[in-house]
């Protein structure tokens, strides 16, 4: 029974990782942008909600809806005026710029909020649980997982059912030809990053409710997010969810064997998947 | 000896078959011309011979050795040199250094040993004045000459030339023909893809016609040019 529990907990954890990764997957998939500041943006989202919660006395679940448009605008501006200028065949400019952004953001948060660990205000829901047979599952992890699935479904709808989604895919395939269709790749990229930051806000909600955060915890989450994206395959959103789950399950199973191997097991799972399938589980045909 | 032999070679890009069951042989010392409409798969055939692409089926033999699985780099070392249709210079290196890379690595010699050879090649292709210019700054014609020079610098036994005469003036064209005849006279086997037919036919001993990846004619240039099929598909450009 413990094994079943371990695997289910791993899957739920994978939901959290997928949520961390979904925005990254969007940005990486559409414009091959390696955003090293993604983790810090999640942390920033959590602080933004903290401010909203403290200033307006809102529940975090309401604050998230105020934070989303703000984060969208931030993402749009960031991409349009900064990150777009780093795109190209060379991966170094985005690496360096987002690394710079990452440390600037971390330290700005540190200046603004100090290093104290914070948490979004919790309520009974935080520790509520449901019994499924002999297994007790937290409501919060279930909600996190459900949100991850909803985000992925939503993104898929956006991608495959809307004109904007078509433009995303077309621009991702070939930005130059897309511009011949009247698409402004710069704006499409900005919109994509805006949407990515909306997802980041959702991830931040669960990050902030789940445990403490402080300005420095971003990078540790970033690597899992990257792993989930790469395992899943560039541009495959369901792949990202699966990637998150693989890492989550690997971690809990590793920990059940010995907590020393917990994080290692996640990384090893990543390496093994890449060894077998260097382009991830669901690569696009044309990369 | 047979310098090059292709046996039932096929290559597709997705649904598009670019090389379709091609088989032919080139004896040592021969100059073979390849013609065919745009997109017929001529350049692809070169990529298969040099190892820049791997065939889906069939085998490629160089000097009677099966080189199908041999890498592009090793094929160069065993004596296959090529020019690219779209010139691919090492843009940040000078013209001389472009040749130096080819000569030192393609022949596995030291820089000192190949210095004069490289200079001589540049003299022959009239690029010597540009020896110290970064290749990125060359004009298209100079780039094409550099393609030829760099291929020559590896001192290949089999030289593959992909459309190097397009856009030359008559005088330049004659000079190019002389250069190629010279190389040929030294015993180098040549395969030359060219749209400028009069240049081609003044050098090659045999002509191969490619259409949709298929070899549809191979033989004496005059006979081939006179054949009805070739008239139809290739000389369709006739006004």
């Amino acid at each position: 029974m413990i094994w079943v529990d371990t695997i289910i907990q791993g899957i739920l954890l994978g939901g959290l990782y997928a949520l961390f990764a979904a925005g990254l997957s969007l940005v990486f998939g559409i414009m091959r942008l390696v955003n090293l500041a993604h983790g810090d943006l999640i942390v920033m989202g959590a602080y933004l909600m903290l401010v909203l919660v403290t200033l307006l006395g809102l529940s975090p679940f309401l604050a998230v809806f105020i934070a989303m448009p703000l984060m969208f605008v931030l993402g749009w501006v960031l991409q349009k005026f900064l990150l777009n200028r780093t795109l190209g065949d060379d991966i170094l400019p985005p690496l360096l710029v987002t690394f710079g952004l990452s440390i600037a953001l971390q330290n700005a948060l540190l200046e603004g909020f100090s290093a104290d660990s914070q948490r979004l205000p919790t309520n009974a829901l935080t520790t509520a649980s449901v019994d499924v047979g002999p297994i007790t599952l937290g409501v919060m992890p279930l909600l996190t997982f459900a949100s991850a699935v909803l985000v992925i479904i939503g993104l898929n709808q956006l991608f495959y059912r809307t004109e904007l989604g078509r433009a995303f895919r077309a621009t991702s395939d070939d930005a130059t030809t897309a511009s011949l269709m009247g698409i402004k790749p710069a704006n499409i990229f900005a919109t994509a990053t805006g949407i990515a930051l909306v997802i980041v806000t959702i991830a931040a909600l669960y990050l902030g409710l789940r445990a403490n955060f402080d300005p420095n915890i971003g990078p540790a989450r970033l690597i899992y997010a990257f792993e989930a994206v790469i395992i899943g395959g560039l541009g495959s959103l369901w792949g990202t969810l699966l990637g998150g789950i693989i890492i989550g399950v690997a971690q809990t199973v590793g920990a059940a064997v010995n907590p020393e191997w917990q994080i290692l097991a996640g990384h090893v799972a990543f390496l093994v998947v890449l060894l077998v399938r260097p382009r991830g589980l669901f690569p696009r045909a044309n990369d | 000896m047979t310098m090059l032999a292709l046996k039932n070679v096929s290559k597709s890009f997705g649904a598009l078959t670019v090389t379709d069951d091609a088989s032919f042989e080139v004896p040592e010392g021969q100059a073979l011309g390849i013609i065919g409409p745009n997109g017929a798969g001529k350049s692809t055939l070169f990529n298969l011979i040099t190892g820049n692409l791997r065939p889906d089926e069939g085998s490629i033999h160089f000097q009677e050795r099966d080189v199908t699985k041999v890498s592009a780099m090793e094929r160069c070392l065993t004596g296959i040199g090529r020019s690219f249709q779209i010139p691919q210079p090492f843009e940040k290196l000078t013209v001389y250094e472009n040749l130096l890379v080819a000569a030192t690595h393609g022949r596995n010699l030291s820089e000192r040993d190949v210095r004069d050879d490289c200079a001589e090649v540049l003299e022959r292709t009239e690029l010597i004045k540009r020896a110290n210019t970064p290749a990125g700054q060359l004009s298209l014609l100079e780039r094409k000459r550099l393609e030829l020079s760099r291929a020559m610098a590896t001192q290949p036994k089999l030289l593959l030339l992909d459309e190097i005469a397009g856009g030359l003036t008559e005088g330049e064209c004659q000079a190019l023909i002389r250069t190629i005849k010279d190389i040929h006279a030294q015993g180098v086997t040549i395969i030359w893809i060219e749209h400028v037919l009069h240049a081609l036919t003044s050098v090659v001993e045999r002509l191969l016609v490619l259409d949709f990846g298929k070899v549809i004619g191979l033989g004496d240039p005059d006979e081939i040019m006179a054949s009805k099929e070739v008239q139809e598909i290739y000389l369709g450009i006739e006004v």
Partner: protein
Amino acid sequence: MAYTVTTQTPASRIATILGAILVVVLIVLPFFAGRGTIQDMFFILTMLVLAQFWNLLAGYGGLVSIGQQAFVGMGAYALFGAVILLGLDPVPSILLAGVAALVIAVPTAFFAFRLNGAYFAIGTWVIAEVVRLLVAQWKTLGGGTGTSLPRDATRDMWFVEGIEEMLGVRSAAARDILAYWLALALALATIGGIYWLLRTRRGLALAAVRDNTEAAKSVGVDAARMKWTVFLTSAFGTGLAGGLIYMQKARISPDAAFSVTDWTAYVIFIVVIGGIGTIEGPIIGVLVFFALQALLADFGSWYLMTLGVLAIVIMLIAPRGLWGLLSERTGLHLFPIRRRLSGGQLTTSEE
């Protein structure tokens, strides 16, 4: 008239002379400089070595790794292992540090070379994390806590006594001087070695592969072997630097020795600020980095914020770095590698 080839330029001849003088000054520096200067120089030299090797990897080999901390950490731990567990002297153990880095570089390369671009970068990062987590389980060397070099080992280190006597300094200062000289030797060997490599036909091949891989293969360049050579060389050199850095620190922990920020991110910063793909770039970059740190480090988070913003600004306005900017304007090269053909038909009209 016969042809000749030169790489020297008038500027580089002057640079060679100035460089030689600089080297002599650096060698005798401990005779007149204070310990603060010596330690600053140690920092500059070791970061320079790391930067040169990362530059070799990314700037010349096109392999953008963000996992160099694996080699720094592995080298450092190998040195500690050799001293604490095998009882070796720290100085020769530095060589072992390089070898240890080389040993993990081989499987790393096997894996990472299957990946390209961003995948390669992230793959190397994950591998470095794995190495860190494994080393953190190495209980005899302190596990996640870390450990220190035994005092006896550092006090009785080779040459220390000699330096004490020669310069009349205390043992702590003598150790610094020893570490400085070793760092100087390593930095000179690194720059010399890389310069030498670039001037051989392999260096030409590297440039060719970087410009156009397919064409390079077609003229007989073994692109795969170039990648291996560059990766293993820079792992070895990075491992040596890691060993040396931690010999001087005398204290290690996995988080410190495998820090992606300290050993890779800052190194990338140095290279890119200075100018990637040149030998001069990392030299300029490390000086800028040091100056920033010296000026601003006391401002805590403002320092790091400035560093972050500077990285962004430089990348946007001068993507080829400060040296790139300078040499574009002036055509200056301190380490020229361009081979210029002269003589023969070129004598009449040198262009």
